[in-house]
Structures are given as structure tokens and as C-alpha cells.
């Protein structure tokens, strides 16, 4: 059959959650939309796969909290099958036989922290309130197209003024906290509130997830806030599972998109983006099919979009240089285990409710910092930070009866290893090292593993197209946020090529299963289409 001629208003590259959100909003506005996904499953890094018979792994991303409520509402995701089950608490085992177990129940957590420090128990409440105030301040910024500080357009200046005014409106206490959060390290920030080492270590962990920062690196306090911003059912800071695994979120969004008229194809890798006279014309698929489109919206990262899918001469040299400068530096890996039984922790044995939340291997600030030190010189952490969940305790449907899944997020696993090492050789020892680490706290782990899946940063790049294995499509560091994300001057979802847009996590406000980039990009695309008409 000769190459079919196919024409769409918009082609969305990549069927990750942002690509799907983007498509859904565009389709709802009446556009003829086609989503092209390279893999056989939708969702990008938000996917569920039956890796071993009967075991449905949330292969990459494993918990959700950041998904924007307006998206859940607009796309009516619960009707499309989205159900979020609460993940209660964080359990941190310690090598000395003690532990720290925080839960959503306020009184319980208060008593638990008081076991370590009475002062901290009091401070914890205050801290929670302060963080809520900070989140309230930052949230409108998440739903805002970043202003361009380089223009004199009154509309852009109004945005800056708006942020300025909101800042002015904060109490002096909140101003102080806000400024600190934007500039400090997670540990310096937490040091001001708490004295318990294990508490600070565990809380600081959310400041480094997905970045190449240590808990003492300035800028990590912001990432802490980024993770605090989670919102499920309107309550701040609650994390949850999607019933059926993380892929269920993507599937619900895909369903909403299809209902609105979008077409979605899987196993449809793109070879290149077609550009003529500085304007996109369409895409060519790997199988040679050509698809014409007025607009291309790319949910893959800038390196994939501008370097791998385009010809070098099509973009201004300076822009390409900035794209090359954009930092990915993946720092994490994933180990997914199929278990015959539940792990038994030395410090708190039995299959108690402490296993139903997150289990964090983050026993001390020094432990976290040393894990980072290894990575700085191109080694995986000898003793990594591990964030684990056992989704089967909340949603038994994802494994055979009586069996369990242990999903382990591991940091640090630097994409760039020191000379002489490569990830394919290290994969096995990386996985074993994680299991050894867990075994120090739950010795039975080695006896109950039925299957294991190890994902290195190189796997994340090869299989999911995440450059350098960065789970946020680029580091969440201050110089890569807001109007600097991903490229200064191009933070508004537009690119130097007319009608080519970015809509993935590499754009404001960044990564996590948030959907905000996909939505904001769709609104900008619609604005431009309207303006052109």
C-alpha cells in the first residue's frame, strides 16, 4: 500500500500523561487530534505492565499526588475509571532497631514524633501549617504560563506584578519561609524546624527525588515544596495509588481524550518532524508513513524533540546550544519485586499497617549525603536512598492472591558513570545492592523474591525515551524552572519553529504526574490557533 495521506489539526508526540492531557484538551476544543506513542502501552512513565504473569507493575512512576484537580474535574477522570486509593504514612526503619512512622492521623503522628523529640512534635504541626501557606502561594504559579521577563508587553508585566503582589500579601513569617524555600537546601531549611535526625533525613528525601542534588545542596528545599504540593481530593500532602496501578491514570486520561474525539496510536514511533520554511508540516513515522498536521505538540523532552527528531539546520544555533546545555542528569533507578510474602522488618515485625504506606530507607542525614557523594563521582550509591511501596496491600488486584509487589525507587544511580563503568554491566549488581540494603532492615526479603525487574537510568532512556534517565525530563533546579524551563526565552511552550510546541514535563511547572504542562500547553496552542484564524 502506498503511503497514506493523513491530515490532522494537531499531532501529539508521545502518549505519556502530559501528551494525553494535551490531546484531551485540544480534542475537547474541537480539534482533530492524533496521539502517536512509540511503545505498545500508553502512559509513558505512568504505565502499568504485566511484567511477570499475574504481577501488574507500576513500572516507573508508582504513586500520585500532584495530578492537578482542575484536570481531574475538566476531563471527568473518575467517570473514565480513575480511582485513587490513599497511601497512608511513611515508615522509616533505623539501623539501631528504632523507627519513625508518620501517618495521616494527626494525633498518632504527634505521639510518634514525640517519642523522638517533644519539641519536634510541636514543631511538626507548625511546619505543616507553614508549608500549606507556601503551597497556597505557589499553586497559582503552577497554573500560570511563565511570564517572559524580556518583553515589555503589559500583559507579561502584569503577571510579574501579580506574583509580586501576592508575595507582598504574605505575612512576614510566610515571606521569610517562602524566600528560604526558594533558595535553601532541604537540610538547612529543616534544621530550622527540627532536631530529630531521622525525621529530617526522611523529610529531606522529597527534596532530592529526581534531581542530582544532595539534601545539603541549595535548591533542594524547592523540590521539597514541589512534592508537598500534592493534592488529592483537595487535601494537601496526601499521596495515593491509582487502582490498577499508575497506568490506570493514563488510561483514564486516554479514555477522556478518545471520548472527545482524539485518535491514539501505539507502536507508532516517529522518525522525524517535518519542517518547511520555519513552520511544521507534519511528521514521518519510522515505517515511512507521513502525517500532515498544522500543529505538532511534543510531550517528549527537548533533546528528543530538537536533536533526535529534527535536522540540525532547522533550528537557530544559539537555541540548539541552550538545548544541549539543558541538564538532565538522571539520578535514579527502579527495582520492582514480585514477592511471595510480605517483608518483615526487624524494628517492627509483622504485617502491620506500617507496610501500607511508603517505606523509606533514609535513616540519617549523613546516610543521605553519603549516598549523594558516591554519585558525584560516578558510582551508584553503596547505600542508596530507597522509597518503597507495597501496592498490593491497598489494591490486591495487581498481583495473584496472596502475592505481593514491592516497588522500590532508588537514588542515586547516576546516568553518567565514572570512566570504565557502564550500566549494562552494573545492572545486576545495582539491583542486588538494593536488595542487600533492604535486607539490612528486613532480612527475609531475599527469601521471598519471586521475580525482579531492575531499571537503570540507561533503561529509562532506552525504553521510555527519558534523556539520561531523568524522570522529570530535566532537573528541577532553580536555573531550570519557571521562565527558564527548558530554555530561557522559550518557557511558554512555544519553540523557534512555528506551530511546534512542547507540552511535557520539560516545560513549566515540571515533572511528576501533574498534567499541568499538558494542559497549559493546550490552552496556549488554542490561543494561537484562535489568533491566527
Amino acid at each position, binding site marked *: 500500500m502506498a503511503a497514506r495521506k493523513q491530515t490532522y489539526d494537531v499531532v501529539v508526540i508521545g502518549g505519556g500523561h502530559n501528551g494525553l492531557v494535551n490531546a484531551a484538551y485540544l480534542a475537547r476544543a474541537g480539534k482533530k487530534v492524533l496521539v502517536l506513542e512509540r511503545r505498545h502501552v500508553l502512559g509513558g512513565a505512568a504505565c502499568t505492565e504485566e511484567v511477570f504473569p499475574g504481577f501488574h507493575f507500576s513500572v516507573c512512576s508508582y504513586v500520585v499526588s500532584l495530578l492537578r484537580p482542575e484536570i481531574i474535574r475538566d476531563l471527568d477522570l473518575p467517570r473514565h475509571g480513575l480511582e485513587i486509593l490513599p497511601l497512608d504514612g511513611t515508615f522509616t526503619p533505623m539501623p539501631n532497631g528504632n523507627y519513625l512512622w508518620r501517618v495521616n492521623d494527626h494525633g498518632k503522628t504527634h505521639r510518634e514524633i514525640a517519642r523522638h523529640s517533644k519539641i519536634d512534635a510541636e514543631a511538626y504541626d507548625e511546619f505543616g501549617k507553614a508549608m500549606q501557606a507556601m503551597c497556597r502561594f505557589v499553586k497559582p504559579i503552577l497554573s500560570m504560563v511563565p511570564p517572559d*521577563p*524580556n518583553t515589555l508587553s503589559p500583559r507579561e508585566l502584569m503577571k510579574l506584578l501579580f506574583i509580586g503582589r501576592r508575595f*507582598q500579601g504574605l505575612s*512576614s*513569617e510566610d*515571606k*521569610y519561609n517562602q*524566600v*528560604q524555600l*526558594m*533558595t*535553601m537546601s532541604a537540610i*538547612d531549611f529543616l*534544621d*530550622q524546624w527540627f532536631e530529630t535526625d531521622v525525621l529530617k533525613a526522611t523529610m529531606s528525601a522529597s527534596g532530592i527525588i529526581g534531581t542530582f*542534588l544532595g539534601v*545539603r*545542596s*541549595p*535548591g*533542594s528545599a524547592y523540590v521539597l515544596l514541589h512534592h508537598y504540593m500534592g493534592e488529592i481530593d483537595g487535601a494537601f500532602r496526601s499521596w495515593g495509588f491509582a487502582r490498577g496501578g499508575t497506568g490506570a491514570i493514563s488510561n483514564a486520561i486516554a479514555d477522556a481524550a478518545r471520548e472527545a474525539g482524539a485518535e491514539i496510536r501505539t507502536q507508532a514511533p516517529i522518525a522525524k518532524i517535518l519542517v518547511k520554511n520555519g513552520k511544521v508540516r507534519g511528521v514521518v513515522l519510522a515505517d515511512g508513513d507521513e502525517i500532515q498536521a498544522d500543529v505538532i505538540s511534543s510531550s517528549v523532552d527537548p533533546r528528543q524533540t530538537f536533536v533526535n527528531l529534527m535536522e540540525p539546520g532547522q533550528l537557530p544555533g*544559539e537555541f540548539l546550544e541552550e538545548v544541549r*546545555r539543558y*541538564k538532565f542528569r538522571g539520578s535514579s533507578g527502579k527495582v520492582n519485586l514480585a514477592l511471595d510474602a510480605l517483608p518483615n522488618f526487624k524494628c517492627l515485625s509483622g504485617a502491620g499497617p506500617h507496610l501500607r504506606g511508603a517505606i523509606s530507607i533514609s535513616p540519617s542525614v*549523613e546516610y543521605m*549525603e553519603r549516598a549523594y*557523594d558516591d554519585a*558525584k*563521582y560516578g558510582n551508584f550509591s553503596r547505600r542508596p536512598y530507597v522509597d518503597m511501596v507495597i501496592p498490593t496491600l491497598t489494591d490486591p488486584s495487581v498481583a495473584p492472591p496472596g502475592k505481593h509487589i514491592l516497588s522500590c525507587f532508588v537514588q542515586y544511580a547516576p546516568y553518567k558513570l565514572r570512566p570504565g563503568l557502564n550500566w549494562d554491566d552494573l545492572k545486576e549488581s545495582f539491583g542486588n545492592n538494593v536488595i542487600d540494603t533492604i535486607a539490612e532492615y528486613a532480612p527475609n526479603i531475599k527469601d521471598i523474591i519471586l521475580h525482579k525487574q531492575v531499571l537503570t537510568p540507561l533503561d529509562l532512556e532506552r525504553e521510555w525515551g527519558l534523556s539520561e534517565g531523568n524522570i522529570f525530563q530535566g532537573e528541577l*533546579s*532553580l*536555573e531550570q524552572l519557571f*521562565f*527558564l524551563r527548558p530554555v*530561557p*526565552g522559550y518557557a511558554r511552550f512555544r519553540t523557534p519553529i512555528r506551530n511546534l510546541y512542547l507540552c511535557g514535563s520539560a516545560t513549566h511547572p515540571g515533572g511528576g504526574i501533574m498534567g499541568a504542562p499538558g494542559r497549559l500547553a493546550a490552552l496556549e496552542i488554542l490561543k494561537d490557533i484562535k489568533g491566527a484564524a
Partner: protein
Amino acid sequence: MPAARDVVIIGGGHNGLVTAFYLAKAGYKPLVLERRPQPGGAAITEEFHPGFRTSILAHTAGPLRADVVRDMRLETHGLKLISPHVAVASFSPDGRVLILYNDLKKSAEEIAKFSKKDAARYPEFRQSLAKVGEVIGKALALTPPDIDQPSKHDLWGMLQTGRSIRRLGKKDMYRLLRWGPMAVADLVSEYFDTELLRATLAARGIFGTFLGPWSAGSSLVLLIRAAADPHPAGLASFAEGGIGAITRAMAAAAEQAGAEIRAGVDVIEISVGNGVANGVVLSNGEEIHAQAIVSNADPKRTLLKLVDPVHLTPTFVAKLEHYRMPGSVAKVNLALSGLPNFLGIDGNIDALKGRIHIGPEIDYLERAFDESKYGNFSREPYLEIAIPSLTDPSLAPPNKHVMSICMQYAPFRLRDGDWESQRVALGDTVVRILARYAPNLPELILHHQIITPQDLEDVYGLTGGHIFHGELSLDQFFTMRPLLDWARYSTPIANLFLCGSGTHPGAGLTGGSGANAAREILKHLKSK
């Protein structure tokens, strides 16, 4: 009846002297009270071994802000600045040396020996640094605006800064925004491939701080320094007679303008009545009343030690306690019987006349930092060295030399033991490392003076041993130095002001804090 003055200045460091000068020039009669036998703070020259004098602490100037030098007419008060042609010589263990001159072209030629590409990019880097630095320099001379109620003056200053940011053009404006929060290792790697060059430039982003080159925000430190001096690695800015000559000239200028300086008097308390500072109490019991008290001591020492905290709100006290002052520098001064024989310079003594940098790789510097995070001093430290007797023979007997070494990282808080027990080990480490580059050094040592971070606190009054009176970081910069809302040189106690490096802009021997503070204090005094 105790004596009454219009202004008392606590501490005769360089900023205290600058403030004293400007206040005296405006017709006030400030009294400067210095605890040590001579004014100068951390900018002093002393004899540390018979016949050997050196800059005991700081060994290069910031350099000084041009308007301060001009207004105080420091040259007429005997100051002769020395600027050797070599800014810095950076040594590598493989025997190679990278020399950066003041002269751009000569530096590029030297860099070309390592990498032609880097040599070609060097002028561009210097130019961007100069342009961005100029804008930052303007902000450094500003009084940080009032966050809650910016005055017309504040808005004007902000507008001017905003305009100069715009005038940078798109490319440099984004550089300014993007660079500030970055790790200095990333910044230099964006321009250069040569590891020795990267490390030499990155050092400027970590000097005096508790940051490693991979710490985010270390670029900001580089930019603040570049505002005073756009040379990428920083010039060697010495003074005839050592750095103490700068503060001696400043003291003379202040006295000529009408200030009085008393050395050897220790202020032990700032007296406060009804929330208003009204005088100071000396260790000998003497009380001096004044309409305004200005402290050149660091913010913690001033407000947590000299002031009774009952006069402050608990929130303010808590915030100030969290003001970060983790000292990281130790100092070793050596009296030498001859000039050490540095490898790789082929007898080119001129190469040693500027600053000498030991820290050949980014990772070397980072590893040095790593140890200090866990409370140990670096076993392979980063060293910033000067041999001032090469450019000023008066500092040592004929053919003999003094060597001044800033050693990093020496964390104020050690994991095991105290600094007294580590003093000798620290000195040995520095000499051991230096002997790799100048093998005959150990046999030339006639005497060594080791100044630990604990000494910096005990002897020189730097809380936490922090040479900048507090970390230079985004969260302690501009409107946040020392604390958000208290960056305008006043304090919650009426008539008590700050003028030291713990206020904006801080950072090095520039006189910026003292000059800015004087401007605000004068406004206050005149409004009375």
C-alpha cells in the same frame, strides 16, 4: 557622669573604619572601639616571627570599591596597592602550571597551551562576567529595598537596576538569571574543557564558604566577587606593607575626618532601654553613652551576645540563630629561609608573585568539601596562597620570605575532638600537600603560625570562624542579609545599626557594607 558621644562604632575592622570615615566627614564625631591592640579586624599585618611580617588573615583585597578609595583618599594616607601582572598561578600534580595574567591576551596564550578552544572562549567568558558583574555591582551599592513598604527611593533604585538588567541584552540577561542559582562547576564547564582551568575559576565560587563546586548557588559567590573584579579568577590585589596597610590608611583617613579610634577596649554590652540602644559598656566597667551605636561585629555577636536577647522578640532571636555562619577556612602563615622551589615554572619567579592556587580538579575541590561535611578537615585541601614578600621585600629579612596560606575546608565544628588537638595536624597537612608542588618547602620553614576556625572566633571575633560574617548564599543575600526585612543596616533595636560583612553586600575586603551602612545611618541621624 559617663561620657556621651554622638556615635559609637563597635569594632575597627575595615567596614567599621569606612563607616566612621563617612560619618565623620558628614560632621559627626564617631568613636571607634577596637578590642584588639590595633584596628583592622581581619585586614591586618603583624609580625609573627622576628623580622617576618605578613597579612595575618586576609591576604588580598576585595578589591576595594573605587568610590571608597577615592573618598577616603587612601593613597594620600600612605596606601600603595600592588597589582602584580600575574593574577594566579595554578599548579597541577602532573607538573603543569596554568598562569592567568591580568592581561587578557597573555592569559589566553597560556590557556592555549592546554586547549585552543578554551583560549578562544576565555575572552567571551570574561566579557560576560564583566557585563553581568557590572549590573550586580550596581545592586551591591544599593541599600536593599524595604520589602513591605518600598519607598520612592527604593523603587527608583530597583528601577535603575531593572534598567541596567534590560540593557544587558537578552543573552546576558538570561545568563544573569540562570547563573545565580547554578553550581559553579556547571558554569565553568559550560565554557571550558581544561580541568585545571575549570578548577581555578570555580575556586572563586567556594572561597570562604561552606559550599563545594558542585553546590548549587556557588555561581552566585563567583558573580558577587566578579562585581568587584571582573577578572575570571580574581586579581592579586596586595598592598605595600601587607593588607594591614589598607586599614591603617583607612584609620588615618577616618581620624583626619574627625573620628576617634580607641584600641584595646572591649565592648561587653550594648545597653538598651525601652527598646532603644543608648550606649555601650566596656570590660573595664566604663560606660559610654551615644545617640547611635553602630556594630561592625557580625550580626550574631552583636544581637545575641552584646545585646541582652530580652530586648528582642523570640522569633527574631530564633531567625538570627539560624543565620548560617559555618566557618570553613583556616590560615597558615610560614616564615621561610628562602623561596620555595615550585615545580613547573622553570625559574620564572614572576609566576609566584600573584596568587597561587592548589586545587587542580573540580572533583579534588569537591572531595575536599566532602570531608568537611562530616566534621573533618580536608586531608587534601584546597589552598589559596600568596608570597607577599616577593612583591614587597620589606615584609621579611633579605632573601627570606613569608608565605600566607588560606586552607579550605576546615569546618568550625569538628566531629571528633576540638581544634586545639587538631592544630598541628592541620599545619602538617598543608605543608605535606604543598611539598608535592614545592618539594623543598619543608626544609625552608623557620616558623609557622596556624590559625584555626576556633582562633578566628576567639581571637578575631568572627562567630563560627566565618570570614564573611555569614554564608554568601541566595538565602542570605541582598534583602535577606542578614535577615529578610532587616537588610537595611538597622536592627529591631532603635539607634542600633550594623555595618559589617554580615550586611549587604558582605563578601571580602571591598568596604561596600561600611559605605552602604554609613549612608543609611546618616539618613537616620539627620532625621532626628
